[in-house]
């Protein structure tokens, strides 16, 4: 039984990370109308930014986290200003190719500066939660708790922003309504920049929460971003609750898959699920939600 709960905990940890990445992706989808392939590179950039802050600047974990969020938000906004906003009237193919170009560029920069080797970010609070171990027999490293708690806090903050502010409501409307017919009189430039900033910051925070129990390397964003795509297709492109729920589902599926099927194949499971679902339902699981 405790093994089962152990997998649930692991799944929720993974799911929290995926959800944060997918959230940014789904919001940006509303602006670009295409999947932002460079989003995974933002995740990676966030990890390196934090690594830089903690090693070169000697910042503590939380400062490094904020630093990474700000830097990555900046990169995201720059990519919006310099590239995507200039391609707005071009065929969607161009956006997708430009996004791939950005992905390659950001990855190449990271590799040029830090090399292809693995790096680590030390856990700010090493050890496990004794209370859980004693009372429930579960092994829960503190960092995993921080990941879940951090994700929940961010999601609540994002929810408040999206529902309580005009800008937030606009972002939601754009994410869900592809035609944008109801968006008369909106400052598209401002909304795009804010959306990209949020997506960058979310990706960075997800990365910084995650890397203490993982590794930093230039291609670290690739699998994560792919899973985020799977998630937003499952949850419906442009859907915020869909991104959160989808992230948790994929996290749990992977955690149980790794445990009960095979660790080697855990990465294949998510994609196999996507292939299966899209084969049966070409519009995704919740087509009406996104369009």
């Amino acid at each position: 039984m405790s093994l089962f709960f152990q997998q649930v905990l692991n799944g929720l940890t993974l799911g929290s990370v995926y959800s944060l990445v997918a959230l940014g992706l789904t919001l940006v989808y509303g602006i670009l109308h295409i999947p932002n392939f460079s989003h995974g590179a933002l995740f990676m950039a966030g990890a390196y930014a934090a690594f830089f802050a903690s090693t070169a600047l000697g910042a503590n974990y939380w400062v490094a986290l904020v630093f990474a969020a700000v830097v990555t938000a900046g990169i995201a906004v720059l990519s919006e200003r310099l590239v995507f906003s200039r391609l707005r009237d071009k065929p969607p193919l161009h956006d997708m190719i430009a996004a791939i170009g950005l992905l390659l560029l950001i990855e190449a920069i990271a590799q040029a500066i830090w090399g292809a080797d693995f790096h680590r970010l030390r856990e700010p609070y090493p050890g496990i939660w004794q209370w859980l171990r004693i009372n429930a027999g579960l092994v829960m490293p503190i960092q995993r708790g921080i990941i879940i708690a951090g994700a929940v806090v961010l999601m609540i903050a994002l929810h408040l922003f999206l529902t309580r502010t005009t800008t937030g409501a606009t972002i939601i409307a754009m994410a869900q309504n592809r035609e944008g017919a109801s968006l008369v009189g909106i400052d598209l430039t401002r909304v795009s920049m804010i959306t990209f900033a949020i997506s960058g910051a979310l990706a960075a925070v997800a990365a910084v929460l995650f890397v203490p129990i993982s590794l930093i390397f230039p291609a670290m964003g690739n699998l994560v971003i792919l899973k985020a795509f799977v998630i937003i297709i499952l949850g419906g492109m442009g859907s915020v609750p869909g991104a959160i729920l989808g992230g948790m589902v994929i996290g749990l599926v992977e955690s149980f898959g790794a445990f009960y099927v095979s660790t080697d194949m855990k990465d294949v499971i998510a994609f196999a699920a996507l292939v299966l679902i899209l084969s049966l339902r070409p519009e995704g699981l919740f087509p009406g939600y996104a369009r």
Partner: protein
Amino acid sequence: MSGLLSRRTLAVAAILAGLVYPFVVPNDYFVYVMALAYIYAIAALGLNLMLGYTGHLNLAHAAFMAIGAYTVGILTVDYGVPYWIAFLLAGVNAAALGFVAGIISLRLKHHYFSIFTLCIGIIVWLVIEKWDGLTHGVVGIMGIPAPTGIGPIRFDTTLAQYYLILAMLALALVVMDRIVHSLTGRAFMAIRNGEPLAEALGVPLMRTKVLSFVISVAYAGFAGALYAGFVRFLGPSIAAETNAFDMIAFILVGGLGTLSGPVIGAIMLTWATQSLQFLQDYRLLVFGPLLILLVMFMPKGIIGTLKARQAREAGERASAARREQAEADASADGRKAPAHA
């Protein structure tokens, strides 16, 4: 007519250049790199059919090249199948798997299609890496035999293989030329320009897209088969999505939806990265910005830009000629008219 003539002249010149090339370069290394560029050009030709002509971004193209390569590698090394039979099966295998993948993925709208193919690419890559029993996993397949000789011709030197690959590239170009200039090729382009209109013109969307996809990945499969026989070692990295991104860069540099664009792009970029040796490890540092700048400022690529200008000038010339003819007719009528009066 002059356009046709110059096209033919250019083609002959290109073939001659390809034939003479090994004799004007200092050593085998140049021949080797060029042959690799040709192989990637064949794969890029296929990708361009889907991307440039049919308007769909298939991010699993490298995976299909890997499928072709591994078909040859596994069949020749583990099962002792003769190279050329394995070569044919590589194309067939890529096409068959492409057919299945196409039937599923081409029902999806554009960006879903791209995401889906990206996932297919990752699955293929993961399978190659993890399925040791079939693919030798991360160790890779070593000692793949070179193509067996045909009659008196042997392919055991780099030079001989260079000519084999050059011939394959020429064949690939001729076939692609016929495809894109055929009525079916026009149907592909109609799909790229807009699916509703294409369908209203009687183009069955699904069947036509699957056809384009299957041909496209068959090119990748054959290119992979050539790669296996030429490089003679295979590792999972051949399926990496960065390989697909490279091919997109080739096409964009040369010209999206042009016949020679992918070939020119492949040769240019291969040499650009080779000559910038110090950039070898950081070639993506060049490719990334290149992709971005191209879609922003020169989306038609080198050949596309040239071709557009040429077509426009030819059109103006032809129209001017027509106008002059019409004016000449009119003035001839004008001269006749008073005589009538």
